[in-house]
Structure formats: C-alpha cells, structure tokens
C-alpha cells in the first residue's frame, strides 16, 4: 500500500461533477500554470504555511524556524508556539483505506453525487489514486479532475476505474502551452482523444485567462479539437482575480505576465459555430 499526500478535502463541492460531491485535493503537480489558484498543490511534499492575517508580530515562529538557502523554513515548533495559531501543516500523509472510509462515511449525502479527485494533478500520485478508485468502485461515483498530463498507459487504466472525467483544456498551441504551463501538451491531447473515443463521461473545462487562453486562435483550436472528438459541451472558468490569494500563505509572490485587470472574452460565437454548448462557471 502506498501512502498519499492530500492537502484538503472539500465537502459539498458544487462545481466538480454531478450531484453533491466531496473533492479530495492531492498534492503535487507537473505543471506550473501561471494562473494557478491552488499553489499549495504544486509541491509534492508537506509544507508548513502561515496565514498572513492576524499576526501579532511576536516572532515566536521565526525563533523556531531554520534558514535554508537564505529562506526561512518553519519547523514544527513554530506551529506549536504561535499564539494566534496562524501556522499549520499543508499536506497530510494518508493511507487509501483511511481516506476511503472517511469518504464513505458521507455516503448518504453523496448518493446522487460522489467523490472527485483533484489537486495538484491527481495523476502525480497515480498509485495512490488507483488504490482509492479501486476501493470506491461500485460503492460511490468517482470523478477525476485532471490536466490530462500523464503517461498513456496510466491514463488508460484510470478510464477503467473512474466514472467521470473533468478534463482541463488550456492551450492548443504547443509552444504557448510550454510557455504558460511549463510542459508540452502532446500527451494531454493524446489522452484527450483517447478519452473522448472511450465514451466515458467527460466534461471539458477551459480556464479563460485574459490574453492567454481566451484568444480567437486558441478557442478556435480547442473547439476544433472538441468537435473532431465528438464533444459538444464545455464549462468555462473565467479568470478569478482571487487566484493569487494563497501565494502569501506559502511565502511566495504571485506575478502573472498577463494583464489581470482585463475581463476574459467568453468567445460565445466560436463555440456556437462549432455547436458546442457552454456553461460559464
């Protein structure tokens, strides 16, 4: 049995698949999207984070921290000593059996919905993910919210285990994809085509980042891909100015290269041209 590292379970997540769901957030992501609003999901390991609000400046956390490569790293005693309880572990190691029994405890609530695995990128911990899916199979509806970035064989196995996929399509152009997310979209597109062909329940999700993903060329490219794959429904997620909200928690700064103040273009006409129904979330 492998242990997994999760950073949150959100109960009553409304926009992560059909029905009332619980969403499990797995830590670690091979992508580094500029607009990532869950930066604590990027690093695979357990981190200690400090909430920036309410600090009385007593210094107890720093007294118990160590310096590594010129950076302050908080230690367990920093958490214990904070009088305002502003520090906590982000990430928790758990066994799949423990996690699944926790999820199944809410089965009565989730009877019309189920569980969604998100992240980070859930495939980053595919061994753990599969253990969970195997245990939940037949007991609860499962969904995976993914960037689609993983080995084809791993992805194929997932389609056998999970009931529903929430698949992010970001950028159609490979160079652009590398520029804004740090990785090529070759595997992603391959997995997408495979998934569409498999007939599995699939919801496409497109983040609308102003000047990046909401351009005419990009939306047209993505629509073409969807239309060729026989997918005619997409959920659009317009850029939220709160995206940078959690970077301070990690001691990081959020500095996107695109203009945050612009309102993303929905491009409804292009979707219409391809007969793709959209829902703006």
């Amino acid at each position, binding site marked *: 049995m492998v242990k997994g590292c999760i950073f949150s*379970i*959100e*109960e*009553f997540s*409304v*926009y992560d698949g059909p*029905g*009332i769901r*619980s969403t499990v957030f797995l830590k670690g992501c091979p992508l580094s999207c500029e607009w990532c609003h869950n930066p604590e999901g990027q690093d695979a390991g357990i981190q200690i984070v400090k909430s920036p609000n309410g600090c009385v400046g007593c210094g*107890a956390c720093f007294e118990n921290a160590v310096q590594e490569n010129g950076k302050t790293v908080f230690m367990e005693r920093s*958490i*214990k*000593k*904070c*009088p305002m*309880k502003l520090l906590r572990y982000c990430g928790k190691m758990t066994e799949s059996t423990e996690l699944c029994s926790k999820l199944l*405890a*809410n089965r*009565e*609530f*989730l009877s*019309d*919905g189920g569980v969604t695995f998100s992240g980070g990128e859930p495939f980053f911990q595919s061994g753990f993910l599969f253990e969970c899916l195997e245990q939940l199979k037949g007991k609860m509806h499962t969904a995976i919210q993914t960037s689609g970035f993983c080995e084809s064989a791993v992805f194929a196995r997932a389609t056998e285990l999970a009931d529903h996929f929430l698949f992010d399509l970001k950028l159609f152009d490979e160079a652009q994809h590398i520029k804004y997310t740090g990785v090529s979209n070759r595997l992603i597109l391959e997995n997408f085509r495979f998934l569409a062909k498999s007939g599995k329940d699939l919801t496409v999700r497109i983040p609308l980042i102003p000047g990046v993903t909401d351009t005419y060329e990009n939306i047209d490219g993505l629509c073409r891909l969807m239309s060729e794959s026989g997918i005619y429904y997409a959920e659009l997620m317009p850029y939220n100015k709160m995206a940078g909200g959690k970077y301070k928690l990690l001691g990081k700064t959020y500095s996107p290269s695109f203009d945050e103040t612009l309102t993303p273009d929905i491009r409804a006409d292009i979707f219409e041209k391809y007969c793709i129904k959209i*829902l703006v*979330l």
Partner: protein
Amino acid sequence: MTDKTLNFLQFLKSGEYKKMRKHAESFGECPLTAEKHLESFKTALELCRPVLFAEYDDFGFNRDSDLTMMWGSGNVTPNYLRILNTGFDGVKEQIKQSISNTHNIGRKKYGRMMLSCIDLCLDYSDRFRDEIKDKNDRLYKALLKVPHGPAESFYEACVFIKLCIFFLRLIYTDHIGLGRFDQYMYGFFLADKRRGVSCEELFETLENFFISLNFDTDLYWGMQQGDNGQSMVLGGFDVDGNYLYNELSEMCMKASLELCIIDPKINLRVGKNTPEEVFESATLLTKQGLGFPQYCNDDVVIPGLIKLGYDKHDAYDYVVAACWEFIVPNCGADTPNYHLLDFPLVIGNMIKNELCESKSFDELMEKARLAVANECERLLELGKIVVRVENPLLSVFMDGCIESLLDTWSGGTKYRNLGSHGVGISSAADALAAIKKNVFDEKTISAQQLTDALEMNFEGCEEIRNLLLDSPKMGNNDAYVDSIASELMASFSKHFNNKPNIFGGIWRAGTGSAQNYVYASKTCPATADGRRSGQPYPSSFSPSLETKSAGLLSVIQSFTKYDLSDIINGGPLTIEIHDSVLRNDIGIKKTAQLVKKYIEFGGHQLQLNSVNREKLIDAQKHPENHKNLIVRVWGWSGYFNELDVEFQDHIIKRCEYII
C-alpha cells in the same frame, strides 16, 4: 414589480420618511399593571399618531413621531384571523357579553380596560380615515369597513393587520410575529380571486403590504437594529400529512425575493416530504443574501412540542415567534427567552473545581452531567421570581382572554410555558473533548497544567492552547466529541423539560443563544476548548468560531446526532456558504438538496446564509458603499451598517473558513 410598488420601495429605501417624523421623548420601562398600560397607551397615541407618508402608500398607520418605548410583553403570535373575521365592533360585543356573564369585579374591570383599548384604536383609526379621505381613496374605502367590521377582501385584511401592529406596538408589545400568514390569509385571497381580482393585483397588494411593514421598524425595541420580531411562517404539514404550500405561500416567497428588504423575515416549515421545488425556490431567496428563509423541520418540531404537552392540533399549527422560538400561535403565551443555561461557564466552573480531583474522564463526565442538573435546578428556582405584565390590548388578540377576561399571562391563554436558551453547547463539548484527549487519553497536559493555563487565560501557555485547539471539535462528524454534546443536551432536557413553572405551564430546554453569544461570553473566563476569556461563543447551535470544520456535510452530521425533538425551545444550526456557490442553477439545485438532506437527517432548524467575507470586510471599512448590505445576525436579519462592531466582527469570523 409594478411602478407603484417600485415607487413605494424607493421611497422606503430613500429614508426620507424618517425626516418627516417629529421628535417625541422616548418611553422608559414598561409599566406592570393593565391600568398603567392603558394610561401609557393614551399618551403614546397622543405623541404618535397614525400617518400616511406617501400617496402610493395604501396602508398608512406609520408613526408621525420618533417615539420609542422599551421592552414590554411579546414574543407571541396574536390571532389576527379571529379579529379580521369579527371586526373590533364585534369583539367589543363579545367582551361586553363576558362582562355581563361574570360577577368577578376584577375581571369586569379588566374587560372594561380591554374595551377602552379598542375604543382608542377605533377613535384614532376613524380620525386617520377622515384625514386621508382626499389622499388615498383605496385606503379610505377600506377604513370605512375595517377595523369596525370584519375584513372582506385580501387588501382590507392587510390594512387591518397593519393597523393592529401599529396599535399593539404602542402599548409595549414587542416582537410580535405575523404567524402563518399564508394559511390564515388564504381565505381572503381565494375570495378575491373568485370575485375576479387578478393575481397581478393581489401580488401588488402583497408587495406593498410587505414594504409598509418596514417603515416604523427602526423605532421598535430590540437588542440591535433589525431585531424586531416581524417573522412570517410559510408552509407546513397538517395532521393528515398534507403539505400546505399554496399560491399565497409562493407569492410571499416571490415578493420577498423581489423586494429584498428585511421585513417580514421568512420562516419556512418543511419536512422530508416537502417537494424539491419548494427547497429550490427557497434557495433562490437565500441567494439574495437576506439570511432567510430559516427552515423549521416539522418532522422534529411537532413531535417535540407534543412531548412537551401541547395538543396535537396546536403542535401542528406551530410558528416561529420572533427569531427562532417554536411557539403555538393564538392560544400560546409562551416565553421561550426566559433565561439561559450558559454551558461554557457551567462546565468551565466544574472543570476548575473538579478536574484535578477526577481520576478518569468518566468521573469528570459524571460531574459535568451533575453540574448541568444543578444549574437546571438553580434556573428553575430563579424562574419563580417572575414579573407579571398585564397588557389589555394584546389580550384581546389572544384566544381565551375575552371569554375569561383574564390577561394573557394571568391565566387567559391555554399555554403559558417558559423556555431557556442552551448557550454555547459546542464550546462546552469541545472543552470536555479536549480534556479527554489531552489529560486522560494521551496525557500530553496534566490536570494542574490545564487548570493553571485557564487561570492564566493562556498567557505564556501557547503550546497548551494549541493542543486544545487541535483536539476534536463539534462540526467534524466525530463521535469522540459529538457524543459529549449529546450527553450535555440530554442532561439539560432531562432536568428541565416539563418541570412546572409558576404560570401553570412548564419549562422548555433549547439550543438558542440570542444575543448571549456575545453578551454572556464577555464575562466567561478562558475555556478548555482553547477559547480565551471574553471571546464570543458560537451563535445558537453552531460550531465554535475557532473550529475549521471538515465541511458542511460533517457539520450537518455532527449537529443532527442528538434527538433534537428533546430540546425544542428553538435555536438553529447556522451555516454560511459563499455566495459564489449560488451563482447558477446548478449551485441552487445542489444547495436545495443539501438543505433537504439536513431535514432528512433530523435537524430541527437551519439558518443558511449566503455571504462574501471580502464584501463584509469592505463594508466595515467603507460603510458608505454598502448601505443595503443585509446580514443574518442571530435569528433576524439587519443592515450590516447598523450593527455594533462586535456583532459585525462575529459575522466576519463566522465566514473565515469559507472558500
């Protein structure tokens, strides 16, 4: 919304009417006797005559001065329907009949005071009618019929109710709700429809009536602005299991949704057999951010009231009095807010005195049960010192008082039960759970260390406090602590429910807090759940403010484990969801499903608030930009800007863990 409604609404929101009032010295404490009530009523009416503010106001009966008066009697739901169907002239005849039927001089005298009250109302409404003759023909014509005679149309009935509220509020009656408006007004509504009145006209009347209920509310007595008790109850099951949600219920929901004003506050009676569409239209109302509807679960409340000795048909007719108190309308003169059992304080004192002497957690828990039992005894003793207030006009509205010529609280009504809040249940359970884990199970803190840390208010004991904060908390569906809460509640209801009170009624245990989550907590020392001295308790039946709970599903399960029909004085679970959840139909539908699940799980009362923490913080900094921001406080909704800062802070804190 018609143009007329829109004009009236804008007039309300402009606040111009407040400038039209003349100044009057406010009235002090409520007098006790009926004579003094009558006297003060006369003076009040001279200082505060009914007035029509605007030509599109079809209801009038607004105060022409800024007269305010302190707390008196109330928290009951008068029988409007009986008065609407009889008219004041008819009621006078009934009282005269009762006077001639009795030889008791005291009762005869009380009857005559009832008559004097009604005569004052009639005199003032007649004069008002003549004053507005050229200003509003519709109202003038209605006032030719009511209040002397019975109301015949929906409009006349609304006018009559507005008039009754105007007069009752000027005789030291506060927090009177509107009761089951959709049920008792349905007859007038249907009669109008049969006469050919269109739904549009009826809707316009209803909306304008709702608007008119908002004019004098800033002058009503309350703990905070907005705490005025104008609750309205919609829906509910009858004895045969039919769900009574009619066209008028739907119209009330629609009016409330469209108008977005704080009165009347909607309470929705539901059960596991309530259709999903009702939950969905209610969720649309939640989306408006007004903090209502508040849900009441018939499946739990009705059996609970029957266990407390209410007759079956009365229990099925229950209403929410003002905030969340479950009472019986018309014939119930219950006082559910009599006093409070301060759980964190009671358990805190027990811990201080007993923890170091206790060998096991079981022993400590036994002492906790005993402490609650002793506190119940003390409260019951305290409850023997009761001040009786005699309100002859209110008694006219309460069933039984005209026949007996006795006051509402002096034997006139059928039910005269008293209730007590159960404040801070989750804090107290969390404290005991933290001790169980750290002192007894894991032995990370010694009993002496903990007692000292509490004594020190955690100064220099951050590690201990953080261990306490990291212990199991109510709201995580964790039996470790939820079972402790159940035991505390069981002890409360066992030693309190159905004990006799001096009015000839009984006592009722509840889960509410009212304003005490802020006021009582101020004097409570540090508690073993990690709460510092003076920090607020959670509002009513909710997780502690320091708790980051596992989520809504866990909160609901934690707070429905105990059989809540045992502790049914009232007091809701309060949960906040971020307003972005309700941004489209998907979110509305799923939230409605969640509420239904709560009901199926056996929750008794739910207050679901749609909030946006950033907006609240901004409103605190820039009140000028958020004049219409409405929030739910503890059983009523108010304008955020008009709340004391400590209540604002509490609401912001409540939203901290919402993403």
